[in-house]
């Protein structure tokens, strides 16, 4: 009984802290927007992630086109290769892949940086100087995640489609205009909404989870490592869960179709 009580007490404490942190961060984004700090974070979170996100997107596009081509060729369905590749990249693979790669880089960076600031009393120093760490550290990072993850995700989608074209043309002998016609068919409002809502939510997850674990870190270097580890795992798991829930919501509740 004690273990269950402790588990639920921890769960409530954790969710309470997370909720309060997020609500306060939103309040600061509205009432006291820190332009300079936010731009710095947009650069670090977004611009700094360009190479790894683009690389992952290019190889994902190559692989998707290769796999679909091999499956569709025997049925003579290569004409719709562009549409199939584009649909899977825009709706699901693009946002999830970009966010998972971002999570490995950004969530870990945020958790370790804030965690280290916590254990070296820099966070306490902020409080002593009358600065709320949520205002200074959390809100700019969360805002940067909101803005930069969708931008990177869309750019990654485009590169994935381009690399898909390369495989479709070289391996599948699909003419480029036919491939692009299929891609254009896939660019429906519903697919694009899908591809924009998800990275927005994932941007929130990967930054807020990093901030949460950073803010909860205490102890020393070992604890910073543990927090960082937990943050990356939690962020990846929540991105996958959120991906399923958003897909379910859009398909079943809002009636989005392929």
């Amino acid at each position, binding site marked *: 009984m004690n273990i269950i009580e402790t588990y639920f007490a921890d769960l409530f404490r954790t969710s309470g802290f997370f909720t309060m942190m997020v609500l306060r961060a939103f309040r600061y984004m509205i009432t006291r927007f820190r332009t300079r700090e936010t731009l710095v974070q947009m650069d670090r979170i977004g611009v700094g992630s360009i190479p790894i996100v683009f690389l992952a997107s290019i190889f994902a596009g190559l692989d998707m086109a290769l796999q679909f081509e091999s499956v569709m060729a025997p049925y003579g369905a290569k004409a719709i290769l562009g549409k199939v590749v584009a649909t899977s990249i825009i709706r699901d693979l693009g946002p999830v892949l970009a966010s998972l790669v971002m999570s490995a880089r950004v969530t870990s960076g945020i958790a370790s940086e804030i965690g280290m600031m916590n254990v070296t009393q820099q966070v306490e*120093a902020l409080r*002593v*100087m*009358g600065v709320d760490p949520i205002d200074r550290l959390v809100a700019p990072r969360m805002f940067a995640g909101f803005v930069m993850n969708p931008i990177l995700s869309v750019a990654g989608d485009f590169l994935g489609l381009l690399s898909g074209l390369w495989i479709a043309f070289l391996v599948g002998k699909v003419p480029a205009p036919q491939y692009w016609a299929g891609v254009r068919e896939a660019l429906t409002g519903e697919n694009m909404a899908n591809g924009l809502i998800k990275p927005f939510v994932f941007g929130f997850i990967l930054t807020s989870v990093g901030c949460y674990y950073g803010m909860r870190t205490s102890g020393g270097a070992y604890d910073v490592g543990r927090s960082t580890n937990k943050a990356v795992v939690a962020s990846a798991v929540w991105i996958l869960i959120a991906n399923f829930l958003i897909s379910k919501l859009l398909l079943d509740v809002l009636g989005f179709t392929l």
Partner: protein
Amino acid sequence: MIRFDGVSLGYGDRTIVRDIDIEVPDGQTIVILGDSGSGKSTILKGVLGILKPQAGRILVDGSDVGELDEEGLLAYRQRIGMVFQEGALFDSHTVGENIGFWLWEHTDWPDEKIEDRVRTLLRFVGLEEVIDKMPDELSGGMKRRVAIARAMAPQDPLVMLYDEPTTGLDPFTSSTICDLIRHVQSEFKAMSLVVTHDIHDAFRLGDLFMFIHESRVVLTGTRKEIEQSNEPFVKAFISI
């Protein structure tokens, strides 16, 4: 004047240190001594208003710190300088940005005026040449001196709090830091609370001494009173 009236401090239901009754007159330095985990640093958190007393009152210059709201605390902390154990300098900022941090956050001073103030403070601690360096380029002693300068940035301090200011430093550097702390005190006539477990530094710095053992204050007094004390913990502590 700082006055502790039957103060107990702790976290949640857990009391870390209890029944503190002491008065620190203006311009004096009290050194808080005790073994690790005895609650020395917790007292500083009480003075800063980070921890509200579980019992009693902490009065600083007539204000009851536990009763201050957020706005009141912000104004109050402008007159309190805190020097953390390892300096706690922001490692993503230069020395100059660290010292000017409070001024950028809470004033609308132009950059030139802030830079003037930063340079004045760095001159005071003898480190003007490191203004553009990052904290990790500084030695331990330099970091403490920068931290002292940062603590004085808002305005001339009413109270200075030092949490283990010489821990981890070599004896020569420790002595330099102690001299600087005395210099700050004589220059600004600030009351100072110094937490340390080093009895030699304590005697260099303090006018009054408070020993904490097993969550309680076991002795408060001047150096002479401390040296004449028969309290076993104090005798053991000062004989080390």
